[in-house]
Every structure is written in C-alpha cells, then in structure tokens.
C-alpha cells in the first residue's frame, strides 16, 4: 500500500468525521494569520508573519511524534503489513499539510505589508515569507524524521530498561524521551531562522551575499540529514519504535490515575452547586475534570505556560506592541480553552449516548461544562491578563479586549455545548 493511498483514506475519514466546525479548528493557522493581518494592518511590519511562521515551524517539528506515532490511524496501520518507509512518508505528508497551512497563514499575515511595500529590490514582507516558508518546509521534513530517530532511541533496550525505573508511581510520563530529538531539531531550526532575521528586516544587507545564505544552508542541511537518517532507519526501526511507544503509553495510567480536580476546581464546583439544585451537575463536573486532566495533561501544562507568557508579556513588552501582543496571546489562550470545551464533549471525555441513558437533564451537563469553561477562561485570560491591565499604557483597551475574549469564548463554548448531539 502506498503512502498516498493511506493519506487519501485518512483525509476521507477526517472529512466524514468532522462537522462544519471541524474545518474551522483544522484551519486555525489561517484564522491566526487573518487576526495578525488585522492587528498589523496599520504598522505594516513583518513581526506578525515572522512570529506565525516561526511558531508554526516549531509546532510542526514538535508535532513529529504525532504525525508519525500518535496519529489517529497509526494503531490501525501498524496492524497491516506496511513498511517503515511508507509510515515515514505518511508522517511526512501529514507534517507537510500542516506546514502548508502555516505558510498560507504567514502569507495572510504578511499580506498588508506586501501590499504596502515599495518595490521588489527590497521587500521585507516578501523576504519574511520566503524565510518562513523555507523554515516550514524544513520543519515538515525534520519533524517526522526526528520523531522516528527519537522513537528508535526509545526502542533501544537500554532506554526501555532505564525507563522502567521511572515508571514507579508518581514518576514522569514515560514517553517523554520521544520529543527529545524533535525539540533539539526545533531549537536548531529556530536558531538558524532567527539568525537570518537581519536579512529580512535590515534593508542594507544585500540579497546575494554568501553569509546571508548561511542560515538557509544550515536549515536545509539539518532537514536533509535528518530525513536521510530517518529513511535509512525506518525499515528497521519504525515498528520497534511504535511498539516501544505503545508499551510505554500503556504504562502511563500508573501516574495518570491519580489525577483529578485540583483545589480551585473543587471550590468552583461547590460554588457551582449553589446555582443549581440538581446533584447530577456536580457529578458531571467532577467526571469531566478527571477525564480531561487524565486524557489531556499536556493541555494543562500548555495553558500554564501560556498564562506565564501572558503575564510576562503584560509586564515587559512596552510601547505600541503591548496591546497587540497581549490581545493576540490572550486570544490564543481563549481559543485553546474553547477547544478544550469541545474536547469535553467528545470521547473519551464524554459519551453523549451514555449521558442520554442516564437520568441527567441536558441543563446539568450544559451547566457543568460551561462553568468549567468559564473557570478556565477566567484563569487563563482574566487572571493572567491582570498584569497587562495594571502595567500597560492602555488599561481600558486591554480590559475591554480581555473581557470580550472571555465573553466571546464563553458564548462560543456554550454554542458548541448546546449543539452537541449523540
């Protein structure tokens, strides 16, 4: 079976599975580009396109393990007689699609600057787009390739043995080694791209001087080396790596079993019960949190990191960029919380059919999910936005923006929740 056939089947299944909103979620880099274009419209700078391109490239590299091993159909494919190279190619195609989305997103973000530019001999927006596209193409090659090498590392008997010691209760997630090589690749990619930024922003640097090529050469070399190595390793190592990963994933419950609602979430649950008489609301609320925390531990870490970033940006970013960066970051966090609310409506967190076989009113489920979304929005956007309010030059604008994000996120979430059908 060819990678093309497999990818076509995966696309077919994805199109059938996702509703109208699925497109929106899948196309979020484009939406991000549009938001950035709107924000950067007046200044016409290249900061936003660069941020989206670089952020996207980092995500694509770090997403390597997902493109290769944790893709929804990876388990089904591994049961079929499919060679490691084909698996690698499927992963590469998956990563390439994501990278293409980000290239378009970057182009959208760069559109105002492209329109405002004054001639082809020096055009920062065009150069930014070229740099980001190069980085994203390299990322699409480096992500799955480095993930395969990381997987091969995990599958080494030595590695598995040391991992087993960490499997003791309370230990760290055992598959944490897997993103190791992708993270190193992402760091190199990021460093090389950042080194090329003067070429984008400073008009005095001529286009055809050898040293300006250096970052591109570094990028391409990195991607090429990784891809060649991964191609060589794939036939022997893909299956072994995949087996090691599922074995380690299966051991994960040892630590995830202990996770459930934290003190803040529990307190909010008690508060929630004051607004309703139906005991089922609290039952559902607790169940949702336990499932979400166990299934999506990384989402909580990511939200926490986002909050820290928002606080830092709120305190340290000065000048014109303050309001823009605070709102963009807070917007990203708000969207992420809505995505989590969407996840809370789907298996394995929720089985709507099972809910309908239990004597729980719709309102209890809605209330539980909406109030949790509100708590998450209030924490991630509201609380983490406070420093930006206090320290920023335009507290009123930031306040209105953050408020709008919370209300908008809540409304979007409630719309999702009220439309959910088994």
């Amino acid at each position, binding site marked *: 079976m060819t990678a093309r056939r497999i990818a076509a089947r995966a696309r077919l299944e994805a199109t059938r599975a996702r509703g109208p909103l699925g497109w929106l979620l899948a196309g979020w880099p484009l939406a991000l580009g549009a938001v950035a274009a709107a924000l950067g419209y007046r200044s016409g700078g290249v900061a936003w396109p660069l941020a989206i391109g670089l952020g996207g490239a980092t995500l694509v590299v770090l997403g390597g393990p997902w493109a290769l091993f944790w893709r929804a159909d990876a388990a089904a494919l591994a049961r079929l007689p499919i060679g490691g190279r084909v698996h690698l190619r499927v992963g590469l195609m998956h990563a390439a699609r994501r990278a293409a989305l980000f290239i378009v997103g970057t182009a959208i973000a760069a559109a105002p600057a492209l329109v405002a530019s004054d001639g082809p001999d020096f055009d920062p927006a065009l150069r930014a787009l070229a740099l980001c596209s190069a980085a994203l193409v390299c990322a699409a090659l480096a992500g799955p390739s480095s993930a395969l090498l990381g997987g091969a590392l995990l599958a080494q008997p030595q590695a598995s043995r040391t991992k087993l010691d960490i499997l003791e209760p309370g230990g760290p997630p055992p598959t944490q080694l897997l993103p190791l090589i992708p993270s190193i690749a992402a760091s190199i990619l990021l460093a090389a791209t950042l080194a090329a930024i003067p070429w984008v922003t400073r008009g005095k640097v001529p286009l055809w001087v050898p040293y300006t090529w250096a970052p591109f050469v570094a990028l391409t070399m990195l991607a090429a080396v990784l891809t060649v190595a991964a191609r060589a390793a794939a036939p022997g190592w893909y299956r072994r790596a995949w087996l090691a990963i599922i074995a380690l994933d*299966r051991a994960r*419950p040892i630590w*995830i*079993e202990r996770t459930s609602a934290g003190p803040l979430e529990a307190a909010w649950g008690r508060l929630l019960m004051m607004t309703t008489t139906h*005991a*089922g609301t609290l*039952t*559902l609320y607790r*169940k949702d949190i*336990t*499932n979400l925390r*166990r*299934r999506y531990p990384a989402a909580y870490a990511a939200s926490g990191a986002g909050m820290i970033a928002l606080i830092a940006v709120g305190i340290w970013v000065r000048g014109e960029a303050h309001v823009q960066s605070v709102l963009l970051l807070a917007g990203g966090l708000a969207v992420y919380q809505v995505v989590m609310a969407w996840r809370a409506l789907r*298996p*394995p*967190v929720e*089985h709507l*059919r*099972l809910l*309908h*076989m*239990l*004597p*729980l*009113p719709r309102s209890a489920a809605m209330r539980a999910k909406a109030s949790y979304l509100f708590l998450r929005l209030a924490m991630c956007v509201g609380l983490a936005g406070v420093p930006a309010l206090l320290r920023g030059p335009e507290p009123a604008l930031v306040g209105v923006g953050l408020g709008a994000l919370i209300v908008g996120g809540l409304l979007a979430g409630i719309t999702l929740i009220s439309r959910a059908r*088994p």
Partner: protein
Amino acid sequence: MIAVSDLTVRYGKRLAVDRLSLSVAPGEIVGLLGPNGAGKSTTMMAIAGVCAIDGGKISVDGVDITTQPERALRRLGVADQPPTLYEFLTVSEHLAFVAEARGKPDPARADGLLARLGLGDAAKRLCRELSFGMRQRVSLAAALVGDVAALLIDESLNGLDPHAARAGREVIEAAAAEGAAVIMSTHLLGIAERVCSRLIIMEAGRIKREVVADELAELRKQGAGALEELYLGLVGASAT
C-alpha cells in the same frame, strides 16, 4: 415493568423496527433473539430513549420515556453494545458516576457487584486497560447500580469466560428476583434457554415468534439443541 406498543424506528429509508409491541413484567427476563440486523439493539436503544422513534409508545416503570425521559431513566439500567465506558475513569469511578447520576450513590452495592462479577481486582484500573470480556462485565455492573426497576442487556454475556458467564447470569437473575423487568438480547441459545422466562425471536424488525414460558419449559425438557432446532427452522440466515 417495560411496555412497548407499535414501536417503529427508521434509519433513513431502512425500517429497523416495524410496529413492535412487547411488555415485560417485574421479575421477568425476556430473551430477545434474532439474526444480526434484526433490530434487537435498535429496539433496546429506543426503549432507553437514545434513538429517535418514528412511532409507538414506550414506558419504563410506568413512565413514558419520550415525554419524561429523566424520570424513566432513573429506574432503567442499560448495558449497551459495544459498552460505552469512560476510558479514563477507573472501573469503580465509572460505576460511582453512573450510580450518582441515577441518584443512588451506593459504593457498597457497586463493590459487591464487582466482586460477584469477578472484577474485584480490576476496580482500580482504568476502563481503557480492560479486556473485551472485562468491559462487558463492567457495562453489566453499570447497568445494575442504582435502584433499577428495568434492565436492557444487549449481548453482554458474549465473550465471557465460563466463570464470568455464570456470574453474569446470576447477577441478572438476582436483579429479576428483586423485581426488575429484564430484556436481554443474546445469540447464546443455551443461556437464553436457561435464564429467560420467555423468548421473543425477531427478524427484520418484527416479532417472528414468541416462545412463552410453558413452551420454553417444554423445550428445556426436550434437552440440549431443541431451541437451536426451533430457531434455525424459524429464521433464515442473517439479514441486513
């Protein structure tokens, strides 16, 4: 008490259940037999209120499932196929959730059920770690927690090892003895013959034949294979 009259369910143009009527008294175990695609699961999902119906009336414990779903569901236990479990809850957390949702949190009963079904050691494991047969049993236990007056059991005894199958049978019989009205679909004719008070053989959405208590007793007397002969003589190969 489960009462169904003139139930009709369509999936698009396909008629899955065609004007089906049945009633199950407290303490009765009605076996629902029939080829794959006969409409057994659809009938049960309609009774459970999770399948839109195109006609008919359904009541559970005297309460209409379409007009008062919440009240009806409080006394109804369902073990569906395949079992719907919260994969990231432990077995006992899952049972506690279901019991709480039915308004009767009763950890002792849940623990007792788990022990009887041979799942005592699995109580602390995540549902997603369980084998097929264990999932079937957890689903059965979840149907039985809380104060249920009616039970719908969809092929839950399939795939169980001999000990587990007997344990499953016994908890179902015990529930009936406590006054639950039970509908149980199965392809295991031996178990149906032994456990059920009455059989309904379905085909293409309709009741093909009802085997009443006396007849069933007669079949039992005729010995092993009598029901199988009756069934095979009655029903063609599996429909779609």
